[in-house]
Each structure stands twice: as C-alpha cells, then as structure tokens.
C-alpha cells in the first residue's frame, strides 16, 4: 500500500456534481483505482466522520479533495479536520473555491430564506408556524437535534488554508483526467494557486475575433438568450450577449459558447485575478458603447458574481 496515494474526499455543501465528474472518468477510473488508497469519502456532513478522521494521525493523508461550500456548523468543522489530516488540501470545484451557485444565497438573509422555504412557498402547509429547530423535544420525550444553518455561505479558504484551487461547476471530467495523474505524481503548481491550463475560455473559443484577426468592437446593445439565436461563429459578447469567457479559466474547453450559450464564469478567474465579479464587470463595462446599457443588465450581481459572491470583496449583502 505504501506506493498508493492516500486520498480523502469530502462533499460539503455542494451538489455532488464534482463527485460525478470523477465517476465520469469511467473506464479510466477502473485503471486509477489500484493507484489510490481512498481512506475517506464522506457524502455529507456528520459528527461521526470527523471523529473518524480525527482518529487518523495528522498529515497522514496525501491529498484531500474538498467539494462544496460551507453553510453548516459541521461543514466548517470538517474543513478544519480535513486541513489537519491532509498534507495537501484542494478546493475542488466552484463551490469550494468560490462559493458557487448556492453562494447567491448571500444576497438574502437567513430569515428571508427560512420565510420563503417554510411559510411563503405555495404548497407549504404550516398552520402552527413551525420553523426547524437546532434542538427540539418531540412528544415531550424525544430530543432531536439539527445542525446550525449559518447566516451566510463561505468558500473553503475562509475557514481553512487552501493549497490549490480547481474551478468548474463541476470540473469537466477531461480536465479531472489531467489533474488526477498530476496529483498522483505529486506535481503541483505554486502553493495557493489554481490548477489550470492557464487559458481563458476566449482563448479556446471558435468565436473569438482575435483568432480570426478581427478587432473587438464596442457593444451597442444588451441581449438575453430569449432575444433570438446568436449569429454563427461570431463572438457572443460582440453581439450583446454578456459572455464572461474573457475572464474565466477555460479548462472546460469553452463548451457553453459552442452551443450558443454565453459563459457565466463557473471555471473561476483567469490567473492573476483576485475578484472575478469585479474583473468581469470591468471587462464588460469597458466594451459598452454607452452608460445607458448598464441599466439593461438584469440582476447584475447574480450575473457577474454568479459563482463567486462569497469569495468576492462584496461577500454578502449586509442589509
């Protein structure tokens, strides 16, 4: 077993898509298994798992993959345990690295989220105004507990030191297939950096004007995908569809523009960019022909910060 790489995987608040990206390695997975010693692969948050992990010597696991953001008390605890036990800790996928889609919850308070889920939704039937409790006594004798739901979502780096980041919602399995052998071989980039092919989505996109030797022109209109199909082979941003490929890592192979859909930034920021949303706003704003166009962008925060609000300077809505 000594030559095998000890791997721990923890799914925090994510959706399991990152796990599926590993399953989608398919036949390659069968070939990789003999080289891996999967010591831990926890599906969800629970006390027992961190006790189990706590039982292992510190730094006894070679690599920890942490997927999903932090929303519950146990997830925060597990992040600390994973950090202690793993020599290398990777924020794997957009949620762990940036907060991800559920990070948009940071535009709303915990009270608003509960109000919607347990009172206002159309099919909810709550005659006694019940709200789930962290501790509750049922029928006067059954004491039941629930984990605490925090007021906001955080990316992994806010609660534990992260060695490397992998983007993507989820990372494409072809990229995972490139990353895992690197992990097995112990070849990593500089600590604290993203594991990436270092190319923006635009660099891999057939629609990129630069590839054709054309110039980028100012954008005269803002379009939504409901405004009709884009022109074949032409840059989506040039046509007014707010594609964020210029500031997004293209480890996916620029898949969305291929099917006429603008990039939304799930791959994470291109190297050197600290705040994805800010850079995306700046990239788009610099191309707008006039200021009035800004007002035509629906819910800008949920566009430019769709995958990265918790990791941004905005972080969350204060009031």
């Amino acid at each position, binding site marked *: 077993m000594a030559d095998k790489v000890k791997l721990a*995987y923890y799914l925090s608040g*994510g*959706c*399991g*898509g990152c*796990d*599926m*990206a590993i*399953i*989608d390695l*398919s*036949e390659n*997975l*069968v070939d990789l*298994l003999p080289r891996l010693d999967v010591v831990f*692969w*926890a*599906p*969800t*948050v*629970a006390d*027992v*798992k961190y006790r189990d992990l706590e039982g292992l010597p510190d730094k006894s696991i070679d690599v920890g993959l942490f997927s999903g953001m932090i929303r*519950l008390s146990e997830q925060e605890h597990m992040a600390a345990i994973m950090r202690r036990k793993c020599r290398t800790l990777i924020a794997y996928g957009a949620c762990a690295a940036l907060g991800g889609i*559920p990070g948009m*919850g940071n*535009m*709303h308070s915990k009270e608003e*989220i509960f109000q*919607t*889920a*347990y009172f206002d*939704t*159309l*099919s*909810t*039937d*709550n005659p006694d105004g*019940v*709200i*789930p*409790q962290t501790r509750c006594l*049922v029928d006067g*004798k*059954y004491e*039941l507990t*629930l984990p605490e739901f925090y007021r906001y979502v955080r990316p992994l780096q806010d609660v534990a030191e992260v060695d490397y980041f992998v983007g993507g*919602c989820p990372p494409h*399995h072809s990229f995972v297939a490139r990353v895992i052998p690197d992990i097995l071989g112990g070849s990593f980039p500089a600590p604290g950096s993203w594991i990436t092919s270092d190319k923006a989505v635009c660099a891999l996109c057939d629609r990129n004007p630069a590839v054709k030797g054309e110039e980028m022109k100012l954008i005269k209109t803002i379009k*939504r*995908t*409901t405004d009709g199909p884009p022109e074949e082979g032409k840059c989506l941003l040039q046509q007014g569809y707010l594609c964020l490929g210029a500031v997004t890592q293209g480890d996916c192979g620029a*898949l969305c523009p291929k*099917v006429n*859909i603008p990039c*939304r930034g799930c791959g994470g920021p291109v190297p050197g960019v600290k705040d994805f949303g800010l850079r995306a706003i700046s990239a788009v704003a610099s191309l707008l022909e006039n200021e009035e166009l800004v007002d035509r962008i*629906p*819910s800008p925060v*949920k566009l430019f910060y*769709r995958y990265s609000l918790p990791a941004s300077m905005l972080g969350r809505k204060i009031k």
Partner: protein
Amino acid sequence: MTLKKIEINPMTRLEGHGKISVFLNDRGNVDDVFFQTVELRGYERFLTGMPIEEVPRTVSTICGVCRCVHFVASVKAADAVYHAEPTPTAGKIRELLLNAHYVEDHTAVLYALGFPDFVVGPTADAAGRNLIGLIQAVGVDMGRLILKKRYAAVKVIEMLGGKPIHPVAALPGGWSKRVTEEERKEILALSTEMVELGQLTLKIFDDVVLRNKEYMDLVTGEVYKVECNYMGTVDEKNRVQFYDGTQRIVDTAGREIGRFTGEGYLDHIAERVLPWSYLKVPYLKRLGWKGITDGEGTSLYSVGPLARLNVADGMDTPLAQEAYEKMYTAFGGKPVHNILAYHWARAIELLNAAEKVQRLASDESITGPDVGAELGTPDEGVGVVEAARGVLIHHYKTDNRGIVREVNLIVATTHNNGPINMAVKRAARHFIKNGKVDEGILNLVEMAYRPYDICLACATHTLPGRLPLELEVYDHAGELCKTLRNF
C-alpha cells in the same frame, strides 16, 4: 420510562446532512424512530431577481446527480411562463437528453448502491460492500464494460446539453442548438450500448437477486415494506412517461384517486413543516394531514421508479414491457409495496430509457431546424417531469420582463420523506430487539432507505462505495455507552 437514543449518523441525501435517531425503551426495543434532514440552500429565495432563461442552468446545481431533471423541469416551466409551445424538434431533443440521463443515473445508483448489498451480500464485510467490491466480484473487465456503456449516455448529455453535468442548452420554448445528422447517427450508435447495458443490468439482477431464495425473502417479505399511495406520470394509455404526461395518483389498493397536470399540483399536494427536520413532509391534500403513518387511509405517497410502475399499466417499449410483466407476475399483483422492488423497477426503467433513446435517435426529424418558438409575455408557469427519483415540480412567477419573482420547487426526495421515515422505522423495529444492536444492523437499516435513492446518496459514495454509518448508544443519563461503526 427512560429512553435510550441511538443516532445513525450520517445518512446521505441531497445537499447536507441526514441522520436517523432511534429511541429505545427500557426493554431495549424501539420506541420511535426519526429520519432527519438538512436540505436547505435557499434556491427558492435566491432564484428571485434572475431572468427565467438563466434558471435552468442554475437550478441544475440543486443536484449534480439528477441535474438534467431540474434542467428540463425548469425549462418546461419557462415555456409556460412565456406561453410558448416548444417546437416538436425541441421537444424531442429534450426528451432524448432526459432519457440519456435516466440511463446514466439509474446505472450509477444501481451499481453503486443497490447491487453491492446483493452481489457482495447484505451482511458481508462492509469494507467490500461497495462499487469497488462489486467490480472485484463481477470482474474488472465487467466493471469496465458497465462504466463504458454508462459513459455512452453521459456523452449524449454533453452533445445535446453542452456540458455533461449542469447542461446549458435549454431555452424557453426551445433549445439553443440543433442536432446535426452526424450527431444523430452517433447517438443512434451509442444507444445500442445503452440498450445492452439495460439488458445486462436486468440479467445481473436476475442472476444475483431473483435466483437467490434468501434475497427474495427480503424482497417480497414484510420488513422492507411501506404501504402508501403512489404518484407518477403516465401517457394517454397509462404507460410510464418521464418527459411529459399526466400525473396520476393511486391509493394503497391501486385505485386511481387523482390526476393533475401543471398548476393542478396545488390541489393535490401540501407540504407540512416539522420542527425536527429541514425537509418538509408532503401529503395528499384531499386526504388531510394524518401524520407519518402508512397503511390504508394514509395521506402519504411515494414517487420514483416503483411508484411510476405502480401507477401505470405498462411501459411504452417492448423489452421494458416484457420485464414489467415479469416483475408484477412475481409479486402477484399491484401495487407492490415492497420497497426493495424499487431496485427492480429501476433496472426496468433503465432499459426503457435506453430503448427510448434508440427510438428518438432513429427519428431523422430530430435534426430539424425548428428549435425556437415564438415567446409571449411572461408571467407564470409550472414544469413537471419525472426525475429518476420521482415527480419533480418547478413553479415560477415572473414580471413582464421574465424576471423571477416567486419560486416553488418540490423535489422527488421531498415527496418520499414520509415513506422513508416509515421504512427506517420498520427496519429498526424489526432488527433492534432487547437492546441488541450490532454491526449487521447498520446495513440492514441502510437497506431500508437506499431503495429510495435519496438524491445524492447515489453519487457520493460511489468511490469507496459505502455509506459510513455510526451507531451511538447513550444511556438515560446521556452517557455514551457504546459506539458501533461500519468503517
């Protein structure tokens, strides 16, 4: 009376943390059991303010396993919001995507969760009772073959949806890309692999489970049984449908007690909030809230593979129909309340979905240019599809620019919340006697909720392939007196 509390922690489910709390009386027998869930990330709230056309690729992330169903349900809702009738071509593309998704999803669930219990054995050493153990048991070549054939379906999802997980190509009233003739031919070729996978899966089920008397006693016995109503989608001939149809409800005796489409769900379904779980418990509104209890007259209902087969009169493809008849002959009647039959139904549906992929890819008109429809003024719409795990409802209200103002989602695992509670209660009551709890119980209790394929569970344990479980036994003073674990 002093109660002892045993926590089985964690269970897995969609996003978050589930556990089972078992309370034992003085004699060490089960007094009551609770299945508790955390499943709240606030989608219904944070989708507000987003343009409806951005919703499908966003709600896909509710679950990385069953992503295509949220994607398709929400785009159907977006059609309704815009009063748009999707073009026939777009409808076929969506149905093709959904059926390809069924193939890979049902495969992942069966091989990672369902089969290890039977292939490796329900009380075998837990270390080998997982996908890796299963691959060892059936042979590496067979494991490779199954994963390869499953990948055929993943490839189709990427081809049609733009990405293999969290697709992007859905648009209100249509689809963002056409299918080329080359793609159609490739999908048709891949569909052969999928049909073979369906047949292979049923054969494995037949060899491993149906021919084993001990297993059949579990499958047809009284322990893994929840007697409730069922809800599922059917076509005009009452055959199982995934993409579109009418939602049909039958009672515990199999009599039809309701039908609805679209917004009609509100006449039939209400969700009760509990103080001890983040997950609401849906029930049939017309029967009233009667608490978490099963048997004749219950207002709880189940969804998912077994529920779909129970509400239907058959399947709409030949090979799957044959398998359907075989299953009901074995049980000698309908509806089947034995929950391990969920796995059997899942295998039948896998074949059905594969046959449908083949049928849809054989239809040359799927390469038509008409993938976009005329959009009206947006306001409100409901989209319902069958997720692999059961009926999935997406309901949106928007302003006149298509910006989301209000959202209601009822996901499949939520419908099953009550029945899952009943299932674990029954298994715990049966297996925990006189204070005796041992390692084997862990898996026997696990087997009571696994058939429901609690959304994420399927994917998240596939690699080590087992659900790490721990039993903690406390005495009446709250002192931990015993810990058992399967890892």
